[in-house]
């Protein structure tokens, strides 16, 4: 039974491939240059078989596939369903719902451009994230620790913060020389607010007794801020980064629609304008994979930094 589970992903690919090869595509779809979907399936066929064999030997991998095997098989069924509805029977308009071969063709034939777009977006995201996080963190720490700063600044921040960052695009474009700088500003702004808010409220929520303990141990004010207040607030600050990145994705895609030369957001808009829907789907796939990988990376980072939280908070 458990051996079967380890080969369920492989079986999923087998039936997906069988259906794909045995049932001909609908004539309504334009033909792709090469059978890309079949190629991909061959690749997965080999990969899942190899992993299946490997998981018989490697304990950890075996456990993983015992748990996820049924899911991967189910994924095969879902792929078959869409392949039949779209590719084989063309039940929905082929212009808006291209078959898999044509979507994959974008990666094979337009791959360099897509890669360039990914790099461009990454540069924008990282730059914006960097400035937004640093400024947001500093703002939050100042608001959290200094009652004066809080008094004088917080009303404005409360007023301006909730405005979606993308609304500032027209203004950012006039303030900054280049569209790129404006885009960085918009992404940074999106990140800034959620980090500043989560940081300041988390710091204010730190129990007073934490500081009292530090004071009786002879801790200086700086020690109380950096070694007590900020670490205590870290889980919430991280939550702020998490929300910040999500709004950064949104801001990123929107910002790229203005005067950008490359970028995933730009790519999708451009493909849509040219009515190349296979390009739109390729872009969506890139975004989905991209965001998931970024968040996974973020969670890994969190587990490293906040490993003391394991057992207290479950995400």
């Amino acid at each position, binding site marked *: 039974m458990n051996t079967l589970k380890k080969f369920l992903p492989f079986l999923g690919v087998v039936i997906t491939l069988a259906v794909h090869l045995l049932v001909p595509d609908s004539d309504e779809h334009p033909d792709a240059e090469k059978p890309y979907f079949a190629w991909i399936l061959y690749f997965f066929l080999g990969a899942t078989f190899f992993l299946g064999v490997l998981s018989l030997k490697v304990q950890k991998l075996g456990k993983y596939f015992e748990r996820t095997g049924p899911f991967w098989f189910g994924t095969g069924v879902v792929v078959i369903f869409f392949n039949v509805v779209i590719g084989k029977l063309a039940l929905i308009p082929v212009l808006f719902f291209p078959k898999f071969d044509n979507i994959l063709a974008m990666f094979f034939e337009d791959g360099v451009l897509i890669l360039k777009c990914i790099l461009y977006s990454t540069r924008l995201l990282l730059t914006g994230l960097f400035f937004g996080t640093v400024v947001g963190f500093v703002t939050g720490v100042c608001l959290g620790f200094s009652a004066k700063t809080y008094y004088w600044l917080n009303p404005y921040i409360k007023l301006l913060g909730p405005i979606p960052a993308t609304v500032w695009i027209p203004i950012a474009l006039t303030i900054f020389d280049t569209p790129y700088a404006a885009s960085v500003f918009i992404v940074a702004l999106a990140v800034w607010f959620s980090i500043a808010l989560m940081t300041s409220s988390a710091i204010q929520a730190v129990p007073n007794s934490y500081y009292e303990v530090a004071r*009786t141990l002879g*801790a200086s004010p700086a020690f109380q801020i950096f070694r007590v207040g900020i*670490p*205590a607030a870290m889980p919430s600050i991280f939550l702020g980064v998490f929300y910040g990145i999500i709004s950064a994705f949104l801001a990123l895609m929107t910002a790229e629609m203005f005067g950008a030369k490359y970028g995933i957001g730009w790519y999708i808009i451009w493909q849509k304008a040219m009515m190349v829907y296979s390009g739109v789907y390729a872009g969506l796939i890139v975004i989905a994979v991209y965001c998931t990988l970024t968040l996974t990376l973020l969670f890994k980072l969190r587990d490293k930094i906040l490993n003391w*939280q394991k057992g207290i908070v479950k995400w």
Partner: protein
Amino acid sequence: MVTENTTTDAKDFIQIKDLVKTFVSNKGETITALNGVNLEIPKGSFVSLIGPSGCGKTTLLRQIAGLAAPTSGGVFINGKKVTKPGSDRGFAFQQATLYPWLTIRDNISLGLRARHIYKEHAKDVDEFIETVGLKGFEKSYPHELSGGMNQRASLARALVGHPEILLLDEPLGALDAFTRMAMQDEILSLWKKYKTTMIMVTHDVDEALYLSDYIVVMKARPSKVESVIHVDLSYPRVRTQDVFVNYRKQILELLDFAGQVQEPEYYL
């Protein structure tokens, strides 16, 4: 001698003079947590504070620690008025209050790090971890340990800096009877070894008798020192000693004399 009447010339004493501390509750009423407390505590003595719940024991310790400003009067150490906390006064809080993001060892060594003297005293940390029986748990996080273990860690954190004065707020409250007795002996030997002035809140009359030179009996509403009992017995004391009975009787009568309606949280 611990006395209720202050004399100003004794430099080495902790002097508490006409100490009044009031709080304003959320409802706006004024709560008098300490209503004119006068005490003198000799250097190196072991003082226990005992009294009904809510009579101001924690408030008094916090005043000595300098965690809050008095409403009037004050606490003087070596003749100097206490205005803020300092590492000369260690405080083991009623709640363990360990930092959840630090391991037990890092929690215990936090004060040394804050004062930049960790390197010289790293050995002390291990020694105190052993003393409070937490060897093997250095790398654990507070939420992985029991309440009693956390309380012992918090005790070690207060002890490790070798403060001149140790303020202990029911440090052994969460411990079982056996660990408790063992910890009492540890506290006694630390007291002997370092000549620390100990001021300890407890609800346990026998614990107070076993450990202290002086027992300060407090009463509630208005919160005041009811009486100070000098326990004139040599150490080590024997828990089953006959004389304990007389002292115990005296204290229990005093607590009754405090005239309070017996409250359910009254620990006797």
